[in-house]
């Protein structure tokens, strides 16, 4: 008489399928990793054990990390390379200050340095300082309105009304537009696009949005949004929309994570973001696990997220390349480590 197997056949089959699925996912993630590993560099802020934030350079897959700053008395935050990747703007904030995930542009001072964060020059407060397309000017957002500074002289060249903008003002790569978070008609946290030449503006996305940024084509905007169609507080997701407004599209969502820090690779094919278990993007604590995905794979839904999957039945499961805990990453294809 043949003894009955101790593990039923169905269970074995299930385990085999699960192992195969995990292996397949690993393979797709590995493919993504190899695809981006040598595509330039990412600069980001990483919280140090001693409590401050330093700028860290890494490959887009998270490898070859090296500190660009090492200053226990200061936190360096929100770095952005100039359009030619020869210089770097970031904020210098006194160590011990809790960095606000949505008001960091008002904190500390703006610093301009070379691409490797050397020879930094403190420029002053200049809230939300952001490069112009040719790197000769910087836009700022403050109570006074939108100011455009001449980098060479440090003088204000132009001042515009801020039209409801209150945070996160970013200049489009083609120089024609601003995007930012604004008060519009009693609604909070609305993403607005403004024509730099005329000051005319339009709504990109209404209701509970923040941290917008431009696609390289200057036609689309990436932003975080916490939609109303969720139970309770809900989860913040990564979305995109045309600059002129209209059909929005979710890029990445995951029940149990708040998705912030959305940014594109220079060619617009890859998306960087952070997955924070608590709302706020991680700057108030120790950063949040970074992620990288292909734009072509969007929308992707992470983890089980059953409610979200019902809303987006066609969403993919991945691949998403996990990056270290970080905050506000920025990507260049230029080899900034080379002597230039």
């Amino acid at each position, binding site marked *: 008489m043949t003894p009955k197997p101790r593990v039923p056949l169905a269970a074995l089959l299930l385990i085999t399928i699960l192992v195969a699925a995990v292996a397949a996912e690993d393979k797709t993630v590995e493919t993504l990793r190899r695809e981006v590993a040598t595509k330039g560099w990412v600069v980001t802020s990483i919280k140090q054990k001693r409590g401050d934030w330093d700028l860290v350079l890494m490959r887009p897959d998270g490898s070859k990390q090296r500190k660009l700053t090492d200053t226990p008395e200061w936190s360096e935050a929100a770095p952005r390379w100039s359009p030619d990747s020869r210089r770097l703007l970031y904020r210098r904030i006194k160590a011990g200050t809790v960095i606000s995930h*949505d*008001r960091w542009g008002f904190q500390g001072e703006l610093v301009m340095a070379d691409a490797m964060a050397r020879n930094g020059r403190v420029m002053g407060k200049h809230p939300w300082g952001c490069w112009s397309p040719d790197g000769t000017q910087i836009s700022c957002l403050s109570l006074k309105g939108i100011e455009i500074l001449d980098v060479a002289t440090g003088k204000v060249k132009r001042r515009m009304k801020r039209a409801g903008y209150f945070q996160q003002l970013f200049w489009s790569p083609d120089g024609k537009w601003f995007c930012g978070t604004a*008060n519009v008609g009693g609604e909070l946290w609305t993403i607005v696009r403004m024509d730099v030449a005329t000051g005319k503006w339009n709504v990109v996305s209404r209701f509970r949005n923040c941290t917008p940024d431009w696609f390289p084509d200057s036609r689309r905007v990436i932003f975080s949004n916490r939609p109303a169609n969720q139970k309770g507080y809900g989860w913040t997701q990564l979305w995109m929309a045309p600059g002129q407004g209209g059909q929005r599209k979710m890029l990445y969502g995951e029940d149990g994570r708040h998705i912030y820090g959305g940014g594109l690779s220079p060619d617009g094919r890859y998306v960087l973001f952070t997955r924070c278990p608590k709302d706020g993007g991680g700057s108030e604590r120790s950063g949040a696990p970074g992620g990288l995905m292909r734009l072509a794979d969007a929308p992707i839904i992470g983890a089980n997220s059953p409610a979200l999957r019902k809303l987006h039945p066609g969403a993919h499961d991945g691949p998403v390349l996990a990056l270290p805990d970080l905050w506000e990453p920025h990507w260049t294809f230029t080899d900034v480590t080379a002597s230039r």
Partner: protein
Amino acid sequence: MSESTTPETDPAKDPSSTDPESVRNGSAAARWILLAVVVVVAIAVTVATGVRSGSSNNAPGGTVAATPGQAGIQGQVTTAGRFEVTAKLMELPGAFLPNDGLYNYAFVLKYEVLEVHRGGDDVGKIIHVAHYNPRKTRSEVGDEFYPDLGGTVDRFRAGDVHRLAMEEPWDEHYIGPLVDRYHETTGKRLYWGIWSNAVGEER
């Protein structure tokens, strides 16, 4: 000796004596005392009437427990901003958003002005005031971004009377999210609330 309890009293200095001269002196003193009492009472009545009439003139919707004028003067309420009023919070237009320290915002509230202390004729009878992080007590509302805010108001309740120090236009003093449930009210003047002291509550 039951006739007198003060047998040692000199009959000549006894006020109850029937001596005509002492009767005349006693009557004069009594008149002076009575006059003084009348004057004091008259002054008290005048002052009380004046204050009462001032209150009712300034509070058409009802009287308030504390009165405008000197009430609510604490902290920087008399010096902060260009405008200072005593005003009644007319209503709460819906619930305040959560304020867990992560998100900060200002919330627009509607007031009926009872008395203008500073700012003159520029201040209308109905005003709208943007209060920063309204879930927080005013004594704890100041932060890294808006350190000059303060006051004694612990929480905002419809009908309460506040002494407010304010600025205008609001967006030259505050840059941040604004919850404005009166956004469809055209032509309203919106002030930035700097200092908010409790004066009393509507009876």
